[in-house]
């Protein structure tokens, strides 16, 4: 009896496994062959393949572009291969370029702005430039283009806009006797005062950040128009602005007005959606996260970032990505034409960006496309504020600051320094440690 039972169980398990693996390998081979087949067909045809990763954000934008381009090129087809995250695209490029076999890549990839410079210098063969495409580059925010332009050559067609926003809960501010104007164009010292007041009266913090990938120092520096880099080297120890900024963050954390979360999910799920904060500062892609809490609809408002001295609007950007043509693309002319017509500000730009905004919340950096009607509409969640037009306007003012391939390395070690200073270490020595370690990793 026992033997029969065991046999039945074993058979059932095998069947289940086979069924599972069968369908698994089926879908695996589907996604595996997609770029190959399109690679062949794009030789002379009108199909392009593209990697992207967010079904709620950048994929709707690509679908909108496909539809817009089909108006002038009815045979055109865009095969969008969804990846599980941006790192998958980076891995795919690393793998293809390291092995020297680019045929595994699609024609176009969506790529993170902060990574592209390093990838172009590491793997020059993996990319083809956008030079010769019919794009008016003056129509884009200069800061956005500073990532995708390498040695004066344009590589990327900008997609989304990483312009940083500071969103506040106006109901909480009012409760404490402040308006959104009282927190606009202020200094960080004044911000800390207001934050303490808010904390005292409502128990809520005024800002939070995922401290395992802390973007606060970078954004606050950019709002000053300054960089943590100088002539390609880390510039932390002698950097007075950076020191003051870190002091602000440490002070805020000490007061309990800035919550430094331990992970991304803690940042989004607990601090923002868990109503622990009355303010959010990040790239505007954080807006959908804020909007998840429908109960707070109408209570938020957007403004610019504070600065160290106050009296002016702080503009910064964080994150964002662009589309790049890979070395595997056989039909480069079609790819350039497609990107120029849609994301590049051509005739299909308004249609593309309007649909991208409506379906995916993707905000353009293309100045002319940002003037369309959809962008002027008020958003109920933000009390009727025309946030999209505001963000496009803010994006045009973001200062260009020195960037580095080692952006994320610096982020890690400055974050570590903040943790150690919070625990009582001395500011200058911690910055020295961070600078040494970043220089070390850069091989300086």
């Amino acid at each position, binding site marked *: 009896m026992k033997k029969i039972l065991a046999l039945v169980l074993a058979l059932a398990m095998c069947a289940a496994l086979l069924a599972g693996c069968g369908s698994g390998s089926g879908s695996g081979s589907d996604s595996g062959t997609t770029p190959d087949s399109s690679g062949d067909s794009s030789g002379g045809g009108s199909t392009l393949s593209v990697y992207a990763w967010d079904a709620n954000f950048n994929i709707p934008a690509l679908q909108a572009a496909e539809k817009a381009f089909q108006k002038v090129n009815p045979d055109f087809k865009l095969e969008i291969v969804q990846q599980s995250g941006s790192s998958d695209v980076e891995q795919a490029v690393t793998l293809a370029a390291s092995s020297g076999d680019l045929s595994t890549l699609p024609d176009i990839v969506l790529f993170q702005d902060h990574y592209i410079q390093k990838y172009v210098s590491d793997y020059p063969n993996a990319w083809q430039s956008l030079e010769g495409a019919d794009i008016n580059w003056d129509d884009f925010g200069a800061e956005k283009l500073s990532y995708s332009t390498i040695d004066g050559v344009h590589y990327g067609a900008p997609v989304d806009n990483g312009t940083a926003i500071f969103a506040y809960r106006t109901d909480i501010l009012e409760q404490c006797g402040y308006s959104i104007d009282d927190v606009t164009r202020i200094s960080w010292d004044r911000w800390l005062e207001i934050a303490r007041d808010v904390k005292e009266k409502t128990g809520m913090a005024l800002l939070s950040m995922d401290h395992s990938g802390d973007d606060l120092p970078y954004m606050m520096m950019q709002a000053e128009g300054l960089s943590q880099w100088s002539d390609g080297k880390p510039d932390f120890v002698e950097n007075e602005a950076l020191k003051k900024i870190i002091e602000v963050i440490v002070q805020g954390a000490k007061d309990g007005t800035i919550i430094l979360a*331990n992970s991304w999910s803690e940042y989004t799920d607990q601090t923002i959606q868990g109503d622990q904060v009355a303010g959010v500062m990040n790239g505007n892609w954080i807006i959908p996260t804020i909007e998840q809490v429908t109960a707070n609809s109408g209570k938020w408002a957007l403004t610019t970032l504070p600065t160290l001295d106050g009296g002016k609007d702080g503009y910064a950007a964080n994150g964002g990505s662009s589309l790049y043509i890979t070395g595997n693309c056989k039909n480069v002319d079609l790819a350039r034409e497609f990107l120029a017509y849609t994301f590049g500000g051509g005739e299909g730009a308004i249609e593309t960006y309007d649909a991208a905004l409506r379906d995916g919340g993707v905000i353009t950096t293309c100045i002319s496309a940002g003037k369309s009607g959809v962008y002027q509409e008020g958003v109920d969640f933000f009390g009727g504020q025309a946030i999209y037009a505001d963000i496009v306007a803010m994006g045009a003012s973001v200062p260009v600051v020195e960037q580095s391939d080692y952006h994320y390395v610096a982020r*890690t070690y400055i974050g570590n320094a903040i943790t150690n200073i919070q625990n009582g270490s001395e500011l200058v020595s911690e910055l020295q440690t961070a600078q040494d370690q970043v220089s070390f990793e850069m091989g300086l």
Partner: protein
Amino acid sequence: MIEKRNRWGWRFLILATAMITVFSFYPMVSALLTSFKTGSSANMKAADPIIYNYARLFKDKMFRTTLVNTFLYLVIQVPVMLVLAILLAQLLNNRHLKFRGLFRTCIFLPCAISLVSYALIFRSLFATQGLVNSVLMGLGFIKENINWLGQTGTARGVVIFALIWRWTGYNMVFYLAGLQNLDYSMYEAAMMDGANGWDTFWHITVPQLRPVIVMTFIMSINGTLQLFDESVNLTNGGPAGTTMTMSHYIYNNAFGTGVANFGYASAMSFIVFILVGILAIINLKVGDTRD
């Protein structure tokens, strides 16, 4: 006849040997060669001087931190886990214990959970607004939420606790299997002679299980030195890199932060390989009773 059988044996062996060569030995040699190169992975050049990557290791403060972290886990977690495992095995080997199977299953069950999911679950349990803080708060043990994963001491504690929870049952199974091979009458005889539970454990179980203990030690040391999932998923190396393991740092250098420093990452992997080798040899020597 024997020759024919041998020939078949070799044929079966060839397949396995070819696969292990292609999938294990070739990458190892390739990684060794890579560890003497620098530059991007598409265009690697021989390092100048040739030991550049290895010399770098001694100047890398972060690598030192991860080395210390990893050995800290090793020194605290492995002994605690193995002692717990052997004690549990002894308890569950008692034939007079009721629901033995149930207890064994319960203790082994954590091993059936994927490394990533259990690390993520521990992360949410120990989040600042997590279940552990809520329970402690509700019971009145603490007045204010503890930032478990935000402070070095507690974060390391959580990692060690998670490791013990995940791996004790796994090691217990080896001890149980070892105990099954011991003649139970030995225990009965010892009881007759008036030995208590502690005596039987110390004078019968431990000496008899010596080879199994050595094996679990080597496996645990090996596993701990290669610790990765917990560091990445539970704490992400934080706070300030004080819970990051060597493997996590190697990964960061190769794939993690876009740096793609494959030469240096390979050099670090070989250091880990050598460390595992040295510790395994020491362990074998200590555990060897043949003089």
